[in-house]
């Protein structure tokens, strides 16, 4: 069991440091989503089933979709898109 805990902890550290230190934003997002999954497993290991559920649904599910969505908007700036949409208030 202690091996399990240590592996979980080290994975968590690697993912956390990796997620914030990437230059490639997409890689960063994937690492963050993965970290959400590992955090959820850690909560499950600690017996906090409620937290694990919320963590996996929000951290791995919705936040991942949200970040990927944002990334899409960042990659295609309004100016380059040219659909005649009002960007004057930006």
């Amino acid at each position, binding site marked *: *069991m202690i*091996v*399990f805990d240590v*592996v*979980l902890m080290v*994975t968590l550290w*690697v*993912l956390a440091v*990796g997620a914030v230190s990437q230059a490639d934003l*997409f*890689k960063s997002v*994937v*690492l963050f*989503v*993965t970290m959400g*999954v*590992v955090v*959820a*497993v850690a909560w*499950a*290991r600690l*017996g906090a*089933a409620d937290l*694990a*559920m919320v963590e*996996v*649904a929000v951290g*791995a*599910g*919705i936040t*991942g*979709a949200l970040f*990927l*969505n944002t*990334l*899409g908007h960042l*990659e*295609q700036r309004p100016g380059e*898109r040219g*659909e005649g949409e009002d960007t004057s208030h930006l």
Partner: protein
Amino acid sequence: MIVVAALVLGSFSAALIRIWRGPSGADRMMGAQLFGSSGAATVLVLAAMLEDWSLIDVALVFASLAAVTVVAFVERTERASMPQ
């Protein structure tokens, strides 16, 4: 039981290497997908090890939402490449 947990956790870490090395976005997404399924497996094994069967519900949520990120990933790139 502990052997099972160790093996599943081992495949967990393998996914990490794939995410790190890439090389393509698809590879990284694949790694995240493996994290999803082996995460559910780990929680299941934990449920048996700790004899805490309420963790089954957690695994249920894991399994049911595993596809969300992948769908979002594909949708994003597809929509970006589509002529508006």
